[in-house]
């Protein structure tokens, strides 16, 4: 594809803003964990981003490829199926400068770094740093590039008409399903569930981090969605304003639904669930942000907010999935809803039928390929590198046990906190 100078400049600016999404997510994950694990959460986030970026540079981009570039094509039933990219590794022979291919590589690098952060929200407080890095390598070098080739790199899903502008499937559902696989392999935190399966509340240590992280994430999401709209959805510059409007409307509607639902159910709005709703709205609307009318973006966000709120409860209470950051609900559930909502509510020139089938095929691929593959790869990794920290490490806190220093060494317990009023 060819981009005008203005489109190139806008994509570059958007990609300079996009890392704020990773920053916001890292803050959210840290804030939703306990203070004894706060530094480890941020350190793991930084390491996951770094490892993912390097793994993508070494191998991931080669497998992801780009639309119109060399690819591995297989003939099935007389039709060509574009299965995998075939570009050289290490960005060799990638035309440098502001070319669409290089900008797509930059977007891929930032997207995979964000995807690598998502499982941390679920596995936090017990997942060893070395295992986090190993899992990030597998995600960045194999899982993400394969699906991203199919959806963004001109692969068979893209040719079917699959729409995933900002990565609801490629980044978020993929990361969320990897988070589910990781949680299943890790098991719950010690003391989370009683012997009869009743969950104990383990509230996060800083709601301020979480809510500020939401604001940062929104800025990053605007960048990702805008860049994706131009690079992968062929949007012209005029459509970017709608992308921005849809992004904010989706997040706002989802956050408000989460706040209202928790107010009605528990008597007070819950800040962390509202934050989860906000991010869930960002995730859901990122798939079709270039194709949804604003009212449809609001509807997508409303449903996402409700889904996330009830999914968090169902996963924790009924399915005993200990997910401190709500990653599975926010990214996997909302991401898959976003893909389907695009097919139902989006406006496409040739009608919605073909797009809906492609979205269903995409969701099917996420459940039937990405989840088993992530589970298998991480299970194999767990045989080489133990995933879970020891009992003593979990009691002490990951900060002291793995890093040797706490996040808040000057914490003082204030006696007036305990004075009767």
């Amino acid at each position, binding site marked *: 594809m060819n981009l005008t100078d203005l489109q190139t400049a806008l994509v570059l600016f958007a990609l300079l803003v996009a890392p704020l999404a990773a920053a916001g997510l890292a803050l959210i994950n840290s804030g939703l964990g306990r203070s004894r694990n706060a530094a480890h959460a941020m350190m793991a986030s930084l390491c996951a981003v770094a490892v993912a970026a390097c793994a993508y540079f070494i191998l991931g981009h080669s497998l992801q490829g780009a639309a119109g570039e060399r690819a591995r094509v297989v003939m*099935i*039933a007389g*039709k060509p*199926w574009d299965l995998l990219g075939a570009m050289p590794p290490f960005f060799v022979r990638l035309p440098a400068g502001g070319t669409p291919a290089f900008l797509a590589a930059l977007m891929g690098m930032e997207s995979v770094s964000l995807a690598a952060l998502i499982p941390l929200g679920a596995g936090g407080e017990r997942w060893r740093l070395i295992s986090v890095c190993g899992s990030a390598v597998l995600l960045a070098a194999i899982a993400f590039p394969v699906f991203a080739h199919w959806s963004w790199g001109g692969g068979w899903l893209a040719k*079917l008409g699959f729409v995933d502008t900002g990565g609801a499937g490629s980044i978020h559902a993929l990361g969320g399903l990897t988070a589910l696989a990781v949680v*299943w392999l890790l098991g719950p935190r010690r003391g989370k*569930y009683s*012997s*009869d*399966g009743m969950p104990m509340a383990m509230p996060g240590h800083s709601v301020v981090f979480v809510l500020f992280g939401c604001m940062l994430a929104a800025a990053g999401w605007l960048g990702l969605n805008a860049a994706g709209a131009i690079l992968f959805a062929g949007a012209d510059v005029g459509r970017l304003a709608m992308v921005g409007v849809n992004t904010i409307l989706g997040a706002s509607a989802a956050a408000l639904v989460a706040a209202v639902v928790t107010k009605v159910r528990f008597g007070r709005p819950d800040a962390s669930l509202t934050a989860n709703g906000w991010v869930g709205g960002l995730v859901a609307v990122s798939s079709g942000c270039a194709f949804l009318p604003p009212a449809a973006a609001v509807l997508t966000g409303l449903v996402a907010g409700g889904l996330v709120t009830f999914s968090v409860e169902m996963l924790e209470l009924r*399915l*005993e*999935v200990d997910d401190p950051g709500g990653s599975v609900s926010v990214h996997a559930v909302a991401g898959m809803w976003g893909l389907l909502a695009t097919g139902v509510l989006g406006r496409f020139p040739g009608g919605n039928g*073909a797009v809906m*089938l492609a979205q*269903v*095929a995409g*969701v*099917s*691929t996420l*459940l*039937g*390929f990405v*989840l*088993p593959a992530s*589970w*298998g790869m991480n299970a194999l990794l767990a045989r080489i590198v133990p995933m879970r920290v020891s009992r003593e490490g979990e009691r002490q806190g990951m900060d002291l046990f793995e890093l040797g220093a706490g996040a808040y060494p000057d914490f003082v317990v204030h006696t007036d906190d305990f004075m009767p009023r």
Partner: protein
Amino acid sequence: MKTAGLLLLMAGWLLVLSALALLVPGVARNCFVAAGLAVECLGLVLTVRAHLPVRSDRG
């Protein structure tokens, strides 16, 4: 049961892929895609149940 669930997930996906590859656009293809999704849902339920801890009060 975990392995069975994961294999069912993959089987459902392959059913969807086969429908897209072998059938022409139409009602039959849509039905096969829906069937593949149903198999995947079954696989997901099985996998989720396999990961639930065994508790004495659970059926």
